């Protein structure tokens, strides 16, 4: 799973973009990207629009990231476009923990 970090300086936010499948092998890369982003920017947007699979290791990385963002006084938003990915957040109850948006445009304008 390639990850990409793009930075939106105008809105003082950073967008961490992941594509493909987030699992035991690929979630460490996402964790590294998140750790780099958190603390440098108040708003961290994790764009999972092009993610087709995520398991508990990926969810754990996001939970850890949210905790660090909150400790730093920032905010995290997640973009999910694939209903299969959203389903995993729903069955684990994480839709109540994260601020989830259906598009990057919605996440950056909210």
């Amino acid at each position, binding site marked *: 799973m390639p990850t990409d970090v793009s930075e939106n300086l105008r809105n003082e936010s950073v967008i961490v973009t992941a594509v493909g499948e987030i699992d035991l092998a690929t979630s*460490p890369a996402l964790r590294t990207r998140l750790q780099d982003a958190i603390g440098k920017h108040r708003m961290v947007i994790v764009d999972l629009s092009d993610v087709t*699979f995520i398991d*508990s290791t990926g*969810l*754990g990385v996001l939970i850890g990231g949210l905790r660090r963002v909150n400790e730093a006084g920032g905010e995290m938003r997640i973009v999910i476009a694939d209903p*299969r990915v959203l389903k995993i957040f729903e069955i684990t109850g994480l839709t109540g923990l994260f601020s989830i948006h259906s598009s990057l445009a919605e996440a950056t304008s909210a």
Partner: protein
Amino acid sequence: MREREIVELSIPVGADLLVLARFAAATIASRAGFDLEEIDDLRLAVDELCVSLIEEGDHGRLNIELQRADDLVEISCRFTSTSEVPPNGSRPDLSEGLSDRILDALVDEHGKRQDGGHEQAWLRKRRIRQ
């Protein structure tokens, strides 16, 4: 007549090969007549089954057996460690507990048992949609 198929996989931990287990589960589920959503459920379930046996930094092999009997799929997974140094006991970032919750939602039954001195995780899922 009860049609039965058994597929066995042995994959190394640490390489990006859990995708093979997910592919095998999807294929078995398709052959059992599962619909697309049920196939996706089983892909994630077998992944969670494997992840539940591994700690970060582990090295070794996952031995996975996938069985199909008509519309019932049973999957078992056993991890054999080759690590010289015991893992540090940490699960990747707070994911512990999520595996069970995911498996509870996606399959009919799941659990763990001892098999020849190794811990084995298993699940069962029957096609529910006609």
